[in-house]
């Protein structure tokens, strides 16, 4: 197989969903069945992506494939030198696996939506937007430069806006769409500045040449601080897109969109982008940057997990669990457990998509009931959905034999190893605690939804298992949540092909002294600054040592969480309401989502409003005042000048005229025309002259 063929395949995969989008959106109104085309396009993309993945992993497992072309050539630019902006694709293992995942999730979401969205007035447009979403995400995944990634990044923002606000007739939906867009924009500002910093420093957008130059010791503004800052600025984008603390508020609101869209957003196309971005730029993140990223990840793992405990909306619980799981991934990246972070991204994509589609199936069949306290007993009515939901819940809780166990355990071991190497024990603590919370709230969800007695008999009677189009995706995704796809050994992910062959520990290009200690090359090994994998042997050892303690601990906490959920909700040994009353403040804090929305409303939103109001006032009064004032001054001045003209200048002229007239009037009298008078005057004149000149 030719490498150019794989790249061509990637191009086709990238543009197929766009074609689907264009056709579907333009014929959406006139051709009723056009959604079939969009689905066929997705099937084709998925098949091609499978071929791509196969080809990449079989023939080019150790080589990264590139293809680029010059987009804009600015020539010689002052201060920056030769500037030529190139666009292109990069196909490494990470991208190949990711694109396959994206296509698979997108495909199952498409298929699921055929039934779920039936009867919607903008049925075709819905599929068109899904196509656009898929296209945008593929762009992020396949690109080899950060500029193109940013472009697709914004496209993802746009498509999420369109889909979250798909039912824009509802005020809450359009609000949520706006919120998602605006909150994302806040992160994107940071990312944009980061990209500009990179460009100023390296005169290129491509990851590869940035890394090469970085390895040569070229730093932004020649300072390690700025390298850290650039990394963190780019991470800002990930904070927004991956809904990390403190910008996680948009994600739960995004539940206003159709449920399959939530599945798509949460699993593959949007929140994954942030993690993917960090994965891409991992090589240029300094130790300081990674530590801060890890802190953000830990906070994002912890806070939403505590919120999810008390939420009653089935989708909100899942939304917070997504934020929490993404926090895990970010934390894992922060502590250097790169491979497990990416692994978790993939496994999470499958089981979270499954959970969302499962909840979609429940909501659909319960006639748009989303409150889990009003469900119950659905196990008997919807056995397939229940099974899929259960498997994915086990996976997200980290129960053995599932994919989630493998990746989550890896992350926990990563934090554990990190802590043992650097002494930051809070990370594993948070990790294990959140693992317990996750197990608890997921099983709370399952028990309230599927177990026990039905709350609403009538709705319960009408509930039934979903049809094929909605059931099939659940089956596919839940099967993908089982361990054997990833490793033959259900307790050790390291033995699996995913981690041992497909995803490699990344190369790190930052200056040696800025890295974590364990990322520095071993002292006895040949020091080569510009070269590859540089996790020291101490890390490998720590990771090895951490494996079993982390596994047992994670098993214990997951078991504990599940047990607690059963005690609370299944066997009702402990009354959750009583406990809630006992710890009222804590309960309220969690139930009200830590008051994030209220805090943001009170600070940023109100602040912005006040600023706008002030600016409006300023515009109206001061700016307009200045303009009006200057107009008034001009007017006054003109009036004065007019008056001056009229009175002084004209007056002077008139005065002279009047004076001459007056003088004329006097002297006219003398011109009598009588010769005798003239003679008298001549004589008088003579006499006067005589007197005047008599002395001469």
């Amino acid at each position, binding site marked *: 197989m030719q490498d150019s063929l794989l790249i061509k395949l990637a191009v086709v995969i990238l543009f197929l969903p766009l074609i689907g989008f264009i056709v579907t959106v333009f014929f959406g109104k006139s051709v009723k069945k056009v959604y079939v085309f969009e689905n066929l396009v997705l099937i084709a993309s998925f098949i091609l992506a499978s071929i791509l993945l196969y080809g990449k992993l079989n023939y080019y497992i150790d080589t990264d494939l590139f293809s680029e072309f010059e987009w804009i050539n600015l020539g010689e630019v002052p201060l920056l030198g030769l500037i030529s902006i190139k666009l292109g694709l990069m196909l490494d293992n990470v991208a190949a696996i990711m694109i396959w995942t994206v296509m698979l999730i997108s495909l199952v979401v498409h298929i699921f939506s055929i039934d779920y969205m039936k009867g919607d007035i903008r049925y075709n447009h819905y599929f068109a937007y899904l196509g656009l979403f898929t296209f945008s995400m593929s762009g992020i995944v396949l690109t080899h430069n950060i500029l193109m990634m940013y472009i697709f990044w914004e496209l993802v923002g746009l498509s999420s806006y369109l889909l979250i606000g798909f039912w824009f007739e509802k005020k809450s939906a359009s609000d949520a769409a706006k919120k998602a867009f605006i909150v994302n924009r806040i992160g994107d500002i940071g990312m944009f500045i980061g990209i500009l910093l990179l460009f100023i420093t390296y005169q290129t957008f491509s990851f590869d040449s940035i890394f090469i130059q970085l390895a040569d010791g070229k730093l932004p503004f020649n300072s390690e601080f700025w390298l850290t800052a650039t990394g963190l600025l780019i991470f800002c984008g990930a904070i927004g897109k991956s809904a990390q603390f403190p910008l996680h508020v948009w994600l739960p609101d995004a539940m206003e969109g159709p449920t399959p869209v939530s599945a798509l957003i949460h699993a593959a196309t949007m929140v994954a982008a942030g993690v993917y971005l960090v994965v891409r730029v991992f090589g240029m993140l300094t130790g300081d940057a990674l530590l801060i990223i890890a802190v953000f990840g830990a906070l994002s793992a912890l806070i939403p997990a505590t919120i999810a405990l008390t939420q009653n909306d089935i989708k909100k619980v899942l939304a917070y669990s997504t934020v929490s799981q993404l926090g895990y991934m970010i934390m894992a990246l922060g502590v250097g457990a790169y491979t497990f972070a990416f692994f978790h991204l993939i496994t999470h994509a499958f089981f979270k998509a499954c959970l969302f589609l499962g909840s979609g199936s429940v909501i659909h069949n319960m006639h748009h009931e989303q409150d889990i306290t009003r469900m119950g007993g659905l196990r008997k009515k919807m056995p397939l959905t229940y099974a899929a939901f259960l498997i994915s819940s086990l996976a997200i809780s980290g129960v053995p034999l599932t994919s989630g166990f493998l990746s989550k355990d890896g992350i926990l071991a990563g934090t554990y190893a990190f802590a043992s190497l650097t002494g930051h024990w809070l990370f594993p603590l948070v990790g294990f605690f959140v693992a317990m919370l996750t197990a608890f709230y997921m099983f709370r969800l399952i028990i309230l939804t599927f177990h026990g007695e039905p709350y609403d008999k009538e709705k319960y009677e009408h509930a039934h298992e979903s049809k094929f189009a909605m059931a099939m995706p659940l089956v596919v995704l839940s099967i993908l949540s089982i361990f054997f796809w990833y490793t033959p050994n259900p307790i050790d992910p390291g033995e699996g092909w995913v981690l041992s062959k497909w995803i490699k520990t990344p190369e790190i290009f930052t200056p040696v002294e800025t890295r974590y200690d364990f990322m520095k090359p071993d002292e006895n090994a040949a020091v080569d600054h510009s070269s590859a994998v540089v996790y020291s042997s101490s890390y490998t050892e720590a990771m090895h040592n951490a494996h079993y303690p982390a596994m047992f601990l994670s098993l214990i906490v997951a078991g504990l969480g599940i047990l607690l959920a059963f005690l609370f909700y299944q066997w009702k040994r402990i009354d959750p309401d009583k406990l809630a009353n006992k710890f009222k403040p804590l309960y309220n804090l969690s139930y009200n989502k830590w008051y994030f929305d209220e805090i943001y409303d009170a600070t940023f939103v109100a602040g912005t409003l006040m600023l706008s109001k002030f600016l409006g006032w300023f515009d109206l009064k001061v700016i307009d005042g200045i303009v009006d004032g200057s107009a008034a001054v001009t007017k006054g001045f003109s009036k004065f000048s007019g008056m001056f003209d009229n009175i002084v200048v004209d007056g002077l002229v008139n005065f002279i005229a009047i004076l001459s007239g007056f003088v004329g009037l006097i002297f006219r009298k003398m*011109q*009598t*025309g*009588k*010769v*005798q008078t003239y*003679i*008298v005057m001549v*004589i008088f004149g003579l006499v006067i002259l005589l007197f005047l000149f008599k002395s001469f």
Partner: protein
Amino acid sequence: MIQVGLNHFLVLSAVLFSLGIFGIVTRKNAVMVLMGIELILNAANINFIAFAKYGNFGYQGQLIALFVIVLAAAEAAIALAIVLNIYKTFSTVNVDEIDTLKE
């Protein structure tokens, strides 16, 4: 016995001159005005003669006086002709009414 000298002549001529001016200015009849002019000319003649007698100019003064008398005759002829023409034009010789010059 008062010695008649130059001053007496000069005073006489000045009186005559003044009378002439007075006649010109006050008389309304054009003919009377002309008579005033004759008086002035004669006052000048007296001056010429007096200066000729008391100065050392020879006979030049007398000669000029003769010229002036001739001139006066000519002037009177022309002036009377003008007066006649004025009378023809304005049907009056009153100089007060002949003031078209001012227009």
